[in-house]
């Protein structure tokens, strides 16, 4: 057997091993993904119940145009994201929000909401490039939806009902609201309850 043939066989064996390792790793990721619970947004105590009709409001946007909140929206859902210019976590969430606007554009409208002085918000919108989002400054809106901490998100389904809500600190928290709507599971507690108790291992 020539050196060339031997080295070729060795290379194929190496590639075969690499393929098996990649397959095992991808399989492991799939298994882990099924085992862990989704990173659900933390639901806080709030006056509104999931499934109830969301308060309907028409408020002026930062640019002066009216923004309709809640109500039936012709097959489209609405995400209200409550944030503040002074909130560092809110700023870290903005890239995820832009991604969500693109990925979920087929069914979702995103509205940013806050309260306080209009000048600060106008500067915030300019600085962070948020002019593509309707932006509402209204203390009444926050009170209506029982917002106590920021950043807080409320997902209203196409029929105008409250689909999911929660404190969103990460991309995973934000996406968990969409998954909650798709699966009909309102909270992480409900999800874990549906899965049933996990079998205890010797290490637990």
């Amino acid at each position: 057997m020539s050196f060339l043939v031997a080295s070729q066989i060795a290379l194929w064996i190496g590639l075969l091993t690499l393929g098996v390792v990649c397959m095992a790793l991808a399989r492991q990721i799939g298994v882990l993904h099924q085992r862990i619970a989704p990173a659900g947004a933390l639901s806080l105590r709030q006056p509104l119940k999931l499934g109830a009709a969301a308060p309907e409001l028409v408020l002026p946007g930062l640019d002066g145009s009216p923004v309709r909140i809640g109500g039936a929206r012709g097959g489209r859902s609405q995400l209200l994201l409550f944030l503040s210019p002074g909130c560092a976590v809110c700023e870290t969430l903005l890239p995820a929000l832009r991604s969500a606007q693109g990925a979920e554009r087929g069914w979702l409208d995103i509205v940013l909401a806050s309260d306080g002085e209009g000048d600060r918000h106008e500067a915030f919108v300019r600085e962070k490039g948020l002019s593509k989002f309707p932006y509402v400054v209204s203390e009444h809106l926050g009170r209506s939806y029982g917002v106590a901490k920021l950043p807080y998100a409320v997902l209203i389904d196409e029929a105008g009902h409250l689909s999911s809500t929660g404190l969103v600190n990460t991309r995973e928290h934000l996406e968990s609201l969409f998954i909650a709507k798709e699966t009909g599971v309102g909270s992480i507690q409900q999800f874990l309850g549906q899965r049933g108790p996990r079998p205890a291992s010797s290490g637990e």
Partner: protein
Amino acid sequence: MSTVVSLGVMQSLIAQLAAFQAALLLASGLHKWIARGRTRTVLTEFAGVPRRLAPFAAAAVASAEALAGVLLWVPSWRAAGAVLAALLWGGYLSLILHAIARGRRDVDCGCSFGAAQRPLGAYQVLRNAVLTGSALLVAAACEAGAVQPFLPSQVLAGLAFLALYGALDQTMSLTAPRSGELL
């Protein structure tokens, strides 16, 4: 001289491709036989086979895949094996396209070794189109020239491609991120 060399290279590449197809069909036939319950469900819900005929259809599909794999292994029957493989993969492709056209993307097509977590889409269509095309290529090459038994290095190449195919299969069956920078 260069024509002879390139012909030899081409024959070697075709042999590696045929070895991969043989390994894939044998593994797939074996998997369908081991996971008979899933195969029956897939045939009923995806292919529209009547429930009472599903056990026979499952056995027939698993046997056809294994037969195509064995035929590809034998030099004198390699062309027939490649044609049978093209018919099988082409048939699966038409079923996938039919399901997508009817909006049934969430149905399990049974075309992955693990449980599918992603809906039917461009990946499955492209993969089956490539497999069908590659099987037709092997069939045409077998008709055009002399077919030799697989060399050990070609068998190893086929197995390596099968392992990479398995890795791709596992990766593409993972739940896709909704949005993000990676994909």
